[in-house]
């Protein structure tokens, strides 16, 4: 009995060490929260608000709960305070808790999602690129405009959507709502999706690179998972996302 207790203790220390050193090397995708956390209800203001939207896929209509706003700094801070999120970006002078969280990478977003899922008992995830395009109503608006129609100049066609960067974030909601009641789709925060670069036919390649994910916002881009502050977004023409953030979805 005593022997086995000591053995268990040694085992615990050993695996604890392994876990700890792993955590130092790579950021954990799912953080291990103390069990006491789930016992206290998350205050309402820290629970992301979701709306049910009907998305028209080519072969079906699917209902999905979509974050009404991008995850805010206040919501992120709560996750950070409870240890669910391991990274807290340095805030800019104009930013407060009501602004969307920015300067976070794909892995950071997954940490938040793991935490909020565990904390609320709901299963949240990032939207796929297709879902994002549908609830952002992209097909009807953005993709129509091209600078050049010649397919040989597809590489430069999207320049028409290029905007001079304005990185200054506003309070959530400041950029208005779309027809689904979702806010800030047209804001200056680009949102992480769960879609690997190359895994949908929008790109030019048939290769799948899952070290980079599609972000959507002012423009479509592929960003490497560990990038938090995208000074470059891919090509030299320079559709660099102004800010990186995210909103969450939940299946009904």
């Amino acid at each position: 009995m005593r022997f086995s207790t000591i053995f268990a203790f040694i085992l615990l220390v050993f695996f604890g060490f392994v876990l700890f050193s792993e955590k130092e090397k790579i950021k954990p995708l799912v953080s291990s929260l103390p069990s006491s956390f789930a016992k206290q209800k998350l205050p309402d203001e820290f629970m992301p608000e979701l709306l049910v939207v009907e998305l028209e896929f080519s072969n079906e209509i699917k209902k999905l709960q979509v974050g009404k706003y991008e995850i805010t700094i206040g919501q992120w801070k709560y996750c950070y305070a409870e240890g669910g999120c391991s990274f807290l970006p340095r805030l800019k002078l104009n930013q407060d808790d009501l602004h969307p969280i920015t300067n976070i990478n794909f892995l950071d977003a997954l940490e938040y999602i793991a935490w909020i899922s565990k904390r609320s008992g709901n299963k949240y995830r990032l939207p796929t690129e297709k879902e994002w395009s549908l609830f952002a109503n992209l097909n009807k608006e953005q993709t129509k405009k091209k600078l050049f129609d010649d397919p040989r100049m597809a590489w430069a066609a999207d320049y028409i959507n290029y905007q001079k960067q304005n990185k200054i974030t506003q309070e959530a909601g400041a950029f208005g709502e779309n027809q689904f009641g979702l806010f800030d789709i047209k804001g200056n925060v680009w949102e992480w999706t769960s879609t690997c670069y190359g895994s949908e036919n929008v790109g030019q390649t048939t290769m799948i690179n899952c070290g980079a994910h599609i972000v959507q916002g002012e423009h479509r881009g592929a960003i490497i998972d560990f990038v938090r502050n995208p000074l470059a977004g891919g090509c030299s023409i320079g559709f660099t996302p102004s800010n990186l953030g995210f909103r969450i979805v939940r299946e009904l």
Partner: protein
Amino acid sequence: MSKMDEMKLSRRTLMGAAAATALTAGVIGKIAMTSATAAEIKDLPRVKQKMVAPPFVPEHDQVAVGGPKVVEIRFEIEEKKMVIDGDGTEIWALTFNGSVPGPMAIVHEGDYLELTLVNPQSNMMEHNIDFHAATGALGGAGLTMVQPGEEVVLRFKATRTGVFVYHCAPGGAMIPYHVVHGMNGAIMVLPRDGLKDPKGNPVKYDKVFYVGEQDYYIPKDGDGNYKKYESPGDDFGDALEVMKGLVPTHVVFNGAAGALTGEAALTAKVGETALFIHAQANRDSRPHLIGGHGDYVWETGSFDDVPATNLETWFIRGGSAGAAIYTFHQPGVYVYLNHNLITAVMLGAAAHVIVEGEWDDDLMMQVKEPTAIA
């Protein structure tokens, strides 16, 4: 001490110029030697040149029409708050006519440039101007110092062809301070018979892109945020500390990051020839046109020199302007940048050129789209 430095500097400039004159004897010598009398200058035709904001330049003849004239221009100095990047970083810019860089004046060799420099009462500081194209009195700086509420008129003869920087030079640490707060620009002195290729054939351009590259040194607070100031000059002490490190926080074209991109991108058509003028009053630069070239490049700015051909990247010495001619052969989007890519991408020194026209498969084509490796 700073005056001493400046004197040494201008002496060296003069000695260099003397050597150049000896080499290219004829043209420069002739005009420099023929001194017009006050009466003769008084009889010259006078024209007013309307200044326009960069990247555009005033309407002008590429080949001079008629004889020398006096070209009148007016610079009104404006100390103004400008936003220089997408983060909303601010500077109290010191400007000629409200833009960074200041406007470009264009004359022909042998013309006179007559500047009225106005320092409105609303400004806080004294200002002046040093034209690198001018001869004597510290490039005019010694004759143009104006306090708020004053104006001054300077006339100088354009004896050398090329593109030349001008900048404010009020003395001491105020010289670099004013220059890195935007108070600089360029003028162009064209040969009377226009630009020439290396074989002496005339070179014509359809448009001019006047790009001023500006390095800024914005102080930060303890948290690493860029500081904001109440009025012009308030940042003086802080800014000098950053400047002394020689590491700019921003290097931008035409005053702000992204100023020549998107809806403000430069535009051209296939077959059109553009003259890119690149001015950098303080710090070395390496202009490069991604997807294009420098067909003819007057790297040091002098149009009396034979232009270099087919350059990929050219060098602009801090304190000078250079010019490059390029004829567009393919449509699309080009990036004109400082090919210190850290400077271009992370500090802001990049512009875009949108070119319309028919794609030429002979020059380039994607033979096979990206696919999985076979």
